[in-house]
């Protein structure tokens, strides 16, 4: 049957040219002439028509499978190279983190409450009942002497690169968990933030109680602003995911998750960058010999820079899709 051979040839020819073009990379379609492109599209439409007929008139399963496979390849070629411009995509990458944070201030507020609230509570608790320190603190912290102007060489300069990379990877891991555990309806995120808050608050409370607060703050301040802000924002990303599970609104939970996904990812990626910066400060600046005043200066300056960035970057563009209620 001549027609059948032609038909088969047409399918296979289309399939082969699609394979070649898919392998040729994302700009392959642009290099085709108008006639070649028209023929490609015609072949695709002919093939999808055959697929539709094969399904509705009950062709053999293998025929449907074969046509379906070729159609998938064709679809990936013809549609995969179209980059649909999402509304948020008009903002360059620099402003996206700030925009995503501003779009979900409630999550930032909740996260900050968990982290700093538990820190304040444990700080006050230790002032009121010093014995709590033995319960709340790790043993290694009971006699801990933070690096300060008087106590410089807790971190030998040789170990600084290692300490820095350990701190960076550890902190990023904490933010990744705070982010991912949002999927436990926020339970894991809350636990993580509260534990970290208690740790922070009780160390600060214990040191204050023993008169080492000046050394402690001197040690924490240069990197602490950036680091704690990053952990707080990662918690916000986690709560954003949690909100899609707890209150999906009019859509399915899976759909709600997909909607907040991009913003949550943007915030988390921003936090990682912040932590890399904080890690370098913690590894190199905090243990250095700069005096107390400059330590305060680094803190104030870093917080001011982050505030300016988060409040103003990416403002003059159209709103994000997912920021709509």
């Amino acid at each position, binding site marked *: *049957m001549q*027609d*059948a*051979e032609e*038909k*088969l040839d047409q*399918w296979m020819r289309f*399939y082969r040219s699609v394979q070649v073009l898919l392998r040729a990379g994302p700009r392959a379609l642009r290099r085709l002439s108008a006639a070649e492109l028209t023929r490609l599209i015609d072949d695709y*439409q002919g093939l*999808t028509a055959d*697929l*539709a*007929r*094969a*399904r509705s*008139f*009950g*062709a*053999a*399963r*293998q*025929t449907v*499978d*074969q*046509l*379906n*496979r070729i*159609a*998938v390849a064709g*679809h*990936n070629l013809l*549609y*995969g190279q179209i980059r649909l411009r999402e509304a948020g995509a008009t903002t360059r990458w620099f402003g996206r983190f700030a925009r995503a944070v501003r779009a979900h201030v409630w999550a930032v507020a909740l996260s900050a409450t968990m982290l700093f609230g538990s820190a304040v509570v444990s700080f006050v608790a230790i002032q009121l009942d010093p014995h709590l320190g033995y319960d709340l603190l790790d043993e290694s912290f009971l006699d801990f002497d933070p690096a300060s102007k008087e106590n410089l060489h807790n971190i030998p300069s*040789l*170990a*600084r*690169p*290692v300490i*820095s*990379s*350990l701190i*960076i*990877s550890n902190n*990023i*891991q904490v933010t*990744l968990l705070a*982010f*991912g*555990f*949002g*999927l*436990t309806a926020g339970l894991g995120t809350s636990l993580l933030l509260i534990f970290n808050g208690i740790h922070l608050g009780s160390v600060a409370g214990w040191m204050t109680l023993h008169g080492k607060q000046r050394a402690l703050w001197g040690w924490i301040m240069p990197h602490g602003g950036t680091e704690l802000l990053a952990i707080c924002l990662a918690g916000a990303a986690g709560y954003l*995911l949690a909100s899609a599970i707890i209150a999906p609104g009019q859509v399915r939970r*899976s759909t709600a*998750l*997909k909607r907040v*996904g991009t913003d*949550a*990812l943007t915030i*988390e990626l921003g936090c990682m960058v912040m932590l890399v910066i904080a890690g370098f400060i913690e590894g190199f600046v905090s243990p250095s010999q700069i005096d107390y005043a400059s330590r305060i200066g680094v803190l104030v300056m870093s917080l001011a820079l982050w505030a300016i960035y988060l409040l103003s970057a990416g403002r003059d563009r159209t709103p994000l899709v997912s920021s709509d209620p």
Partner: protein
Amino acid sequence: MKSNMDESVFISTPDHVSLEFELAGPGSRFSAYVIDFIFNVLLIVVIFLVVFLTGGLFTLRSLVTSSQGSSSWSASWILAFLVLVIFLINWGYYIFFEGLWQGSTPGKKRVGIRVIRQDGLPIGWREAALRNLVRAADMLPPPCYLLGGLVMYFDPLGRRLGDMVAGTYVVVEKFALAEQGASGAAWATRVEQGRSRQALTLARGMISAQQIGLIEQFLARGRELSQERRALLVWQIAEPLLSMLGEDRDSLARSADRTERCEQILLQVLDLAQSREPHVAVARKTPQPSSLF
């Protein structure tokens, strides 16, 4: 225990073509995970070996040139580098491969599955990052994948939490096109020309469209079946037609080459059906078992 997962998902394209993707089950996904886990560990071991062998030589050489300080500095930086690389491999292995290989990893490739977007297109870096950065939640309690497994079990599309956040499915990747395209093409040509499967009216009776469809399916796939099953099926399909075609049922039933002769007869029926001019289809709606396979 039957999960309520569908076998496949249909994705509608903007031009109203419905593409079918076979969903990957928990079994194949788990085996891909095991392979990737082994690969992951091997990667870390290899990097350790490479760094310690070359780093060790490096340190030795700088000791010879008697610059004590620089050698310990380089050791410190090498250690820092190792810490970061291991962290990156742990968290970035899946992101790297799925982003680069359009939804595939060494394990997934081996098992024959891949990740696609909900619109049927291959995933990019955004989806790869999202579905793998929240993997920690699916893994709860680590490393049991209890939470992710439960979500997969109850989701008709077999998604874990990471798939929902990223908007992805894990589907079966079929590698080679089936070789038999000719009968499908012949069929498609006939349908296009308005001669879809129709009942075949003979002098002594009528072969329904469903029966003809059954014959087509059998002739297309019969060779994949075992000898006994094939003999049984061909007899089941051919027996009701024999009297219409003027064959002697009883003598055929006893003959030694029954299967071959029945296949010949079915081929003849198909030829006959395909050569007929279109005519009014009768009794298209007769209920019939749609498939015996």
